[in-house]
């Protein structure tokens, strides 16, 4: 990827939280990746692996402990609050729980035009017009929904509102943190199709966080698999699904429920061991406690992310 195509560059990003007298939690450790213009990157991993912390660090909510995040070559991590604020319209986020991310007292229309109001863009009439236009674009009839409040909407409709609100500032980057995890499968499909449509028609770059690889496959060009604060495999969707190299990626793939009553899920490849906690200071590979391929050297040296094929990176001493 040459520099002109790169929208987002994340380098050596780390996020740590103080944990009282027990030291510090390393939620994200030394993560680097690029995201191209118009590209959709899926970020997958279990709860607690640092996906959301990474997303928030990219959004500068709060700022990361160390490392840099650059959008269009502009280092967000080096900007002061006022300059960061002026760039915010270019990167927006939608959250997992759609109802909780909307003000229950505010009408849907007011919620969607709020970003423009905050930025002081346009007059009231124009803001209303733009909000109505955006509602129609995300599949909410403005006549029916403009004056409603979040409690009168279903989960799927609330998520459409979140998407509309995030798109109002015409962002280049949309960070989606588990946007469909709390929705029914039937509604999930609607929201995924909507995200695909807006991504393609607006040329957005998407960072899409999920613990479900099957969904990522439908939406994303590339996948980054995260385990305990680090990336363990990054690959184009095709390569990751046809030939996953990291044992953890394989386990994630094997866990997806199949629509086939004859499919007997093979007993999980994962060892029953307890995963390390992000509180531990870990020598060697952080996945080794659950890894069926772990050998002696895994306990000694931490594997680095290395390129093993076109755009296919894996951090494992013994990839399959």
């Amino acid at each position, binding site marked *: 990827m040459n520099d002109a195509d790169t929208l987002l560059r994340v380098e050596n990003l780390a996020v740590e939280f103080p944990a009282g007298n027990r030291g510090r939690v390393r939620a994200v450790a030394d993560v680097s990746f690029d995201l191209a213009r118009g590209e959709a990157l899926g970020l997958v991993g*279990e*709860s*607690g692996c640092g996906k959301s912390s990474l997303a928030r660090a990219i959004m500068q909510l709060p700022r990361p402990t160390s490392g840099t995040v650059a959008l269009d070559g502009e280092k967000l991590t080096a900007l002061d609050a006022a300059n960061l604020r002026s760039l915010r319209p270019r990167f927006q986020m939608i959250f997992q729980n759609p109802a909780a991310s909307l003000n229950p007292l505010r009408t849907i229309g007011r919620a969607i035009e709020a970003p423009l109001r905050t930025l002081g863009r346009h007059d009231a009439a124009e803001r209303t017009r733009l909000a109505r236009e955006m509602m129609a674009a995300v599949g909410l009839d403005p006549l029916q929904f403009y004056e409603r409040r979040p409690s009168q909407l*279903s*989960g*799927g*409709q609330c998520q459409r509102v979140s998407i509309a609100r995030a798109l109002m500032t015409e962002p280049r980057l949309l960070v989606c943190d588990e946007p469909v995890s709390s929705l*029914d*499968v*039937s*509604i*999930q*499909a*609607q929201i*995924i*199709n909507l995200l*695909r449509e807006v991504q393609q028609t607006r040329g957005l770059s998407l960072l899409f966080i999920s*613990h*479900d*690889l*099957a*969904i990522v*496959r*439908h*939406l*994303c060009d590339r996948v980054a698999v995260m385990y305990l604060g680090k990336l363990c495999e990054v690959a184009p*969707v*095709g390569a990751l*699904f046809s030939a996953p190299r990291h044992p953890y990626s394989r*386990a*994630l*793939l*094997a*866990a*997806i*429920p*199949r*629509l*086939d*009553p*004859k*499919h*007997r*899920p093979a*007993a*999980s490849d*994962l060892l*029953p061991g*307890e995963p390390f906690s992000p509180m531990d200071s870990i020598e060697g590979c952080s996945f080794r406690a659950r890894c069926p391929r772990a050998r002696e050297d895994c306990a000694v040296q931490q594997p680095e992310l290395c390129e093993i094929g076109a755009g296919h990176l894996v951090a494992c001493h013994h990839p399959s």
Partner: protein
Amino acid sequence: MSEPLLVVDKLSVHLPCGDRIVRAVDEVSFTLQRGQTLALVGESGSGKSMLCRAIMGLLPGRARLPAPGRIVFAGQDLGVLKASERAGLCGRRIGMVLQDPLSALNPVMKIGRQIAEPMRHHLGMTRVQARERSIELLRAVGIAQAETRIDCYPHQLSGGMRQRVVIAIALACEPQLLIADEPTTALDVTVQAEILDLLARLQRERNMAMILVSHNLGVVAGRAHETAVMYAGRVVEQAPTAELFARMRMRYTRALFDAIPRLDDPAQAMLTAIGGQSPDLAALPGGCSFAPRCARAEERCSDQAPMLVSDGHARHRYACWFPCAVGATA
């Protein structure tokens, strides 16, 4: 075949809501044999949870069960039991696993006490007996170092571990029927597979009957003997699971199936979403309640409600005027 463990016969659950009546469950009938698993599948608001709560006896106080609906458990009509007799079943002979393991546990009580509670209450065990048995149960649900973990508070455990604790509580009195209401919806995929495998193993080992509720057909595919698909309070298709997947007839079942992202589709293909919303249960349309969202619906569908009928194949019933052609699903 021996007498079924559970018979649900024309069961309806009505919830008065202002001057309207929400028909949460509408004339649902099924039977469940010992050692069998029945899956209930459907969207939010399809009545799955209300049905489970009706069997468990945990309906909200204003709920009404209109005649002639009956629930018969082990030969006993639950409708005629006194409240105290009913309470004696709940947690003892019928166990329940709820969706969200964090809100199902008391955050200020050690998990050991929470597992011991039903055994102390129903079986009259002493504190020491119950603690010993709690440790055994924690081991049975796959928690390592059970002797020390028993003194943990819920917040000290991961989501998957908490759900194992909730399962241990449900199993404490060796119930004959286990109701698992979306037991893995709040969990990660890797943990989901582990918990479903655990439930299947426990169900086999203890010869329990199980009702497994999910909104995802993929979750129940390899794990239930029989599957019932619910929509707007009614069962709209029911069959042995393998038969259902091989020959889906009802259009809603098919739509639910198609909405799930699959690993064998071309990557990045559009998903087939079900348009619209599930209907308002206080103002159900006449006719088939899925008709407003169904691509195949004709006039007849909005006039006349289809009955649940058999198509001649063993125990396969569906309610649809224009069913999918046999063999349309692979």
